[in-house]
């Protein structure tokens, strides 16, 4: 009787595990097909189209004057907006994670606000402020200053759109680390800056780097907000994504995808570094859980 029972159980287990295996294979296949269709194929297409007419056409598309000025403007925008948001992210997460005060979660919601605003609206608000019909428009015109349809507007819109990135990466990790190490530093008479530099910063360096990378990828790739404030002046106020749009609409597909491939490469490098940083982060944390040897 007992033997019979165990055979039945064995059979059942076999059926279940066979069913599990087919289920497992089917689910993996569905997931891979979905990601292949929506992520891998578009990415692959960018590079294949970019090199459709060979290496020379690719290089030519990247070295013609309008492309060079678009690349320069994109770099300038990132060089201004990324450090600004990095400093803000560090300052904001210090205030939010090292102190207790009322309205903290409301403040975090406000910092996250640019994430939930349509890129087009992010551009629109600056047109309403600084455009000719805007609040400050007449004053700017009288003083011969131009923000909208010029580089300052592009930088402003980019800073707005990338505003939360660094703070968002830092806040959870600084929250987790608490204030004990900083308090210890202060009882040992360290100054505020010394504590920040020697205690806080080493603890959050990977999260900070990751936030900066994401911020940079978005700053260089932002399209909607920048498109609204740029005015599309070729060779003057076109960033790389806007240059791609113009080339594409002129049916100059090889050149459009050539410039696009640079931005796609940036995205891939950003994510590769992210994967590397996550691996480092998990390795850095591992010794904490192990018993302290020395």
């Amino acid at each position, binding site marked *: 009787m007992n033997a019979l029972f165990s055979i039945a159980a064995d059979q059942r287990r076999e059926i*279940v595990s066979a069913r599990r295996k087919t289920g497992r294979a089917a*689910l993996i296949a569905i*997931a891979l097909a979905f*990601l292949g*269709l*929506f*992520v891998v*194929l*578009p*990415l692959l*297409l*960018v590079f294949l*189209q970019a090199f459709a007419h060979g290496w020379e056409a690719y290089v030519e598309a990247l070295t013609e004057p309008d492309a060079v000025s678009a690349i320069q403007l994109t770099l300038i925008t990132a060089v201004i907006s990324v450090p600004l948001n990095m400093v*803000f992210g560090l300052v*904001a997460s*210090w*205030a939010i994670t*090292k*102190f*207790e*005060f*009322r309205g903290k979660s409301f*403040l975090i919601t*406000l910092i996250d*606000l*640019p994430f*939930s*605003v*349509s*890129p*087009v*609206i992010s551009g*629109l*608000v600056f047109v*309403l*402020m600084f*455009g000719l*019909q*805007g609040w400050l428009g007449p004053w700017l015109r009288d003083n011969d200053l131009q923000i909208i349809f010029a580089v300052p507007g592009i930088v*402003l819109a980019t*800073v*707005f759109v990338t505003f939360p990135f660094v703070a968002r990466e830092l806040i959870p990790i600084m929250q987790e680390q608490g*204030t004990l190490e900083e308090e210890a530093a202060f009882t040992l008479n360290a100054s505020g800056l010394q*504590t920040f530099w020697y205690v806080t910063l080493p603890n959050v360096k990977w999260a900070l780097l990751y936030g900066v990378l*994401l911020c940079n*990828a978005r700053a260089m*790739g932002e*399209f*909607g907000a920048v*498109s*609204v404030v740029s005015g599309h002046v070729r060779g003057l106020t076109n960033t790389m*994504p806007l240059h*791609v*749009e113009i080339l594409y609409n002129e049916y100059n597909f090889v050149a459009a995808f050539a410039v*696009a491939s640079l*931005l796609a490469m*940036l*995205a891939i490098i950003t*994510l590769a570094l992210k*994967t590397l940083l996550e691996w480092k982060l998990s390795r850095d944390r591992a010794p904490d859980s192990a018993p302290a040897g020395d």
Partner: protein
Amino acid sequence: MTQTISRIPFRAQPSVIPGFGLTLGLTVFWLSLIVLVPLSSLFLKSATLGWDAFWAAISTPRVVHALRVSFSTAAIAAGINTVFGLIVAWVLVRYRFPGRRIVDALVDIPFALPTAIAGIALTTLWAENGWLGALLAPFGIKVAFTPAGIVIALIFIGLPFVVRTVQPVLEDFEREAEDAAESLGANPWQVFTKVIWPSIMPATLTGMALAFARALGEYGSVIFIAGNLPMKSEIAPLLIVIKLEEFAYAEATAIAVTMLIASFILLLCINILQRWAERRERRR
């Protein structure tokens, strides 16, 4: 005691760490300068319109249709992303297979790839002479330059949200509960609906709401593939841009405020969902 605190907002608890006033002051100042003042200019502008002009601006057939296209395509894309996002999250958490790490990294591509690049790539793929469009053309199915194309772009844009919200919850899920249900004779479907789904539902809904909110405001990837025919495949953010180019600032503002209010309501729902999930987590 609580009353005295509530009368003094923004008061720090005593701490040996310096810099509270400085860092909070800088944070609030910079936040106001870059985000709050510009955003309030939008509401100020719409306030100068008056209710009648505001209503007239958003009730024209073209605007109503654009809003309908935006909301419906965003909803369909969020729904599709929820189903496939759950499957992808499940596969990444539960199964070990070669290349899993790369697949995991690929999920973030829509966050990192500029939207305009996604737009031209998807359009080229799904156009009638594209790799995928050519497969569908013999059956008379057109994707690019129709509302279906908009859905394709929005699926791409919203793809990571459900995966990334469900993944951590699934990782923390205790498998003993599943084993117990199974040993009591539950079939896999019952195990999923009765045991797993209740604990991942809040995260799934949050991911869906995030994907929907993102899709609602999306511009860059959609305008290439949509075809942008008024009353057919025109989305609300594009209409804002068109109104701006016509210098119809009042109308652009009215549409923008309508969409902004919609996303604030969504943000509120997401917050409530997350609180609910946290409370459930604590009760367990």
